[in-house]
């Protein structure tokens, strides 16, 4: 959040070019013909990487704000039968009735699979004399080894309901305490959904089947659509990332400019206040604000988060602008304008503002990534958004649990944060370079 103070101070107007302008302004008042000099921005000749960053930012905004109109999935909807899935297309699933107390009728002579769907796989094998307990293992068919020990069963059948996916499994049954394999199956469960879940999700039944939506990026550990969550999370992240810098830079600029223009003891006091704010610990404030606003446990903390950022982060831009205003006010052309009888307001509007505006823009584009990052960090440690709302940071936090087995759940939101931060940083760099007259002259 700390604004870097190391930018080159921005002095686009050399004495020789600005002096006549100042005079011109003084003579012709606010005549329209006096606008020939670059009052607004230096010519926006952005570098190629700057343009690329600009495009990336636009794409991100489109993804986050327009995307949900196209991809209309509820980001907090949990597809319980599709936990931690990879990318998948829309498909239909059979409705089944779960019965956790299932028992087969009678004994069997050979190992049998009674049914195999993603809700349950029912296995039965011939009972063996003298065996008190059977161990049932499950592994992916293409992997060697027994895999995970599902259960120790005291009867010669077993119903597996544990996070079944539509992939090929190998089941192995052994007598407990021995290495001898009693039965082995390779099974691919067909897609299914329990009636209870279908009712809970409100899915219409069509001849015993329901249609499940596609998940282009897969689902997370609670069965939520990752694409929809990236959009929803980005909305929080970018909103915080844009609103907070807007507010604190606006406030910082105003404060810095007033201090610079007022000068004297007022300026002195104002700058000591800035020093004081810089010394405050951000995290502590963040927590205090949550308490002060009565944000109870489990409630969204986005508002105090933005407020804390505004309260703590305006100092950088205040200092920057004050320094700039001070140095500008000693420029000969400003003095000339003053001598020529121009009012304070006019000087500000004609000379100060155009000169600091590019700098404000640059600091804004640097503040955005750091705000995104702060939000991500706070959500990561649980001080930001509260479920069911989400943000990229919160999604990283969710995904870290399954990093080993399902890395995309953490890597995708992390990539979004990285792209956003990189794009805004690159844009900031490009804006600064574009605005720096010395660099421009060199090139």
């Amino acid at each position, binding site marked *: 959040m700390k604004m870097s103070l190391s930018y080159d101070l921005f002095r686009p107007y050399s004495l020789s070019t600005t002096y006549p302008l100042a005079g011109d302004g003084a003579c012709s008042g606010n005549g329209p013909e006096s606008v020939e000099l670059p009052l607004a921005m230096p010519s926006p000749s952005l570098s190629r990487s700057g343009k690329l960053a600009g495009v990336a930012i636009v794409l991100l905004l489109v993804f986050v704000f327009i995307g949900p109109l196209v991809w209309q999935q509820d980001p907090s909807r*949990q597809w*319980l039968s599709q936990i931690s899935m990879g990318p998948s297309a829309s498909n239909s699933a059979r409705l089944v009735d779960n019965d956790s107390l299932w028992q087969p009728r009678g004994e069997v002579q050979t190992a049998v699979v009674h049914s195999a769907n993603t809700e349950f796989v029912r296995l039965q094998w011939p009972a063996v004399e003298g065996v008190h307990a059977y161990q049932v293992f499950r592994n*992916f068919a293409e992997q060697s080894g027994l895999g995970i020990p599902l259960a120790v069963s005291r009867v010669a059948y077993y119903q597996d309901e*544990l996070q079944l996916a539509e992939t090929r499994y190998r089941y192995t049954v052994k007598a407990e305490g021995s290495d001898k394999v009693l039965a082995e199956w390779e099974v691919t469960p067909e897609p299914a959904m329990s009636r*209870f879940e279908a009712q809970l999700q409100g899915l219409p039944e069509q001849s015993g089947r329901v249609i499940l939506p596609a998940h282009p990026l897969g689902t997370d550990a609670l069965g939520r659509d990752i694409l929809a969550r990236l959009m929803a999370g980005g909305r929080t992240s970018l909103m915080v990332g844009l609103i907070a810098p807007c507010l604190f830079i606006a406030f910082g600029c105003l404060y810095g400019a007033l201090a610079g223009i007022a000068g004297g003891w007022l300026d002195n006091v104002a700058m000591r206040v800035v020093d004081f704010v810089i010394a405050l610990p951000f995290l502590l404030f963040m927590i205090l604000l949550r308490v002060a606003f009565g944000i*109870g446990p489990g*409630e969204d903390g986005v508002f105090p988060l933005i407020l804390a950022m505004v309260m703590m982060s305006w100092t950088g831009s205040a200092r920057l602008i004050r320094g700039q205003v001070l140095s500008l006010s000693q420029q000969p052309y400003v003095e000339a304008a003053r001598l020529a009888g121009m009012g304070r307001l006019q000087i500000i509007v004609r000379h100060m503002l155009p000169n600091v505006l590019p700098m404000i823009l640059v600091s804004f584009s640097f503040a955005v990534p750091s705000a995104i990052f702060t939000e991500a960090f706070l959500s990561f440690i649980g001080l930001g958004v509260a479920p069911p709302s989400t943000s990229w940071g919160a999604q990283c936090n969710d995904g870290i649990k399954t*990093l080993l087995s399902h890395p995309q759940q953490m890597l995708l939101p992390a990539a979004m944060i990285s792209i956003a931060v990189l794009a805004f940083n690159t844009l900031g760099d490009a804006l600064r370079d574009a605005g720096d007259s010395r660099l421009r002259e060199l090139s």
Partner: protein
Amino acid sequence: MKSHWGQRPSPFLIFFVAIFCGALFFAHSPYAQAQAVDAQTSRITLSLATEPPTLNSAQATDTIANFLLSHLMEGLLRYGQDGSLQGGVAERWELTETGARFWLRKNARWSDGKPVTADDFVFAWRYALKPETASQYAFILYPLRNAEAINRGELPVENLGVRAVGAHELRVEFEKPCPYFLGLTAFMSYMPLREDMVQRWQRAYAADADKLLYNGPYIMSEWIHGASIRLRRNPNYWGRNEVAIAEIDLPYFTADTSAQFNLFRDKRIALASLDSGQLDKAVEQGFDIHQFQTGALFFLEFNFRKGRITANKSFRKALQALLDPSILVNKILGMPGVLPAYSLFPTTVTGPIRSTGEASYFRDQFPVRRVTANLDQARDYLERAKKELGITAFPPLHLLVGDSPRALQEAEYYQYVLKRGLGLELRIDQQIFKQRLEKMRRGDFDIVAAAWGPDYDDIMTFADLFSSWNDNNRGRYNSPHYDALVSQAANTADPKLRFQAMAELQELVVEDVPILPTYESASLYVQHPQLRGVRRSIFGGDPNFRDAWIALPEGKR
């Protein structure tokens, strides 16, 4: 053990977590390259979930301390390799309805060579009950005559129903029948203490390796706070010849299961617990995965204090009809071995002894009635609750949970199902363990995700949890029927009457829903193939290496 542990394991719970979370492991030589097992010097290296808060057996409450103390100390009895009770310091014993007698081994010694005497037990038990000791586990000594009054400061400690007859005989008198007393004597609060050591170090007792005495199979040769612990075989232990592993190093303190799994993969530790995040990886790498039922019950506890919506029975029934434990277990948790819970009593609770003489499980004899998830029924109940409460809409409910990732995941699942199924808003209040206990104590919740690990091998450790006089009944559930059933079972030694009362209690919990059982936890772990005979058990400290040994390498993995 005592203390609810939910997502964030409580002390005792932490220990399970240690186990569950795979706290323990073997290897030796913490420095340079630690090695998981060293057959030549018979050393193993493990990791510990966290450092124990105290090793004073009268004050310890957590699973880590229980693990360490079960190696460092020995009570009158101990749990053997097959899970049965065997002689510890006691050589013979006799249990009646009114009391018990124990005859101590003459060769049981402290690590300084002095014999373990009956007076050491008398002192330890009195010390644990003294109000100044403030032992959280004092209640576990309440079967002794006058124990409760002494603990409340109403009687001097000399009135405790235990006395030493000579150096090697201990006589115990009960307050009321206690058929499970023998199992209690294996618990850490019942372990002996040497009066001279406790007096000498006072509050610093057991704060360092040299500030306590050992009478168990191991001594603590080194305890660097925050860094490492090292156990060595106790040369003065009476059964030293039965102890095969000479040294247990604990150079890693981490509760992070992926860190533990990485240490295991690098052959630094000999045992590592797995969470669902490491499971697939462990399978892929071809490790043998072991499973162990921890005996702990996880549940949602409702707040019955005045003004709470959760005090309404129809409302609780609506949640019961909506939340199917098997969906939580099979879809969300995804840990094999974790069982959906439908009853106050986990499947591991022992039932009456069969006519054949073998132990049985309570649930095999008294199956629980299951409530199947039914959305329409849940909505009906909710409507009824609305009428009974005279409200038109429900305010947001607060769900208090621990701060582990798994806890949050579970909470988000409840949040979604309640919203989707009943339109209820659930706010998740995630707190660290201490803070969660504090909020539970204050009653600052509507629903709390809690857990309970059994303290002793008897059904009563679960049954009296929600009796109105129990401090751990955080929801302040108050049912005369429940209390009557608990008292009825507590005041008789007749197994038939006891278990009949317990069966009624089980049905009462399903009918009245003071809690919603969610799952029975299990621990998945990987273990070095050369390490054998490690005892995993619900009681008596887990895991236990007293009877473990290191096999010679087989030339393959």
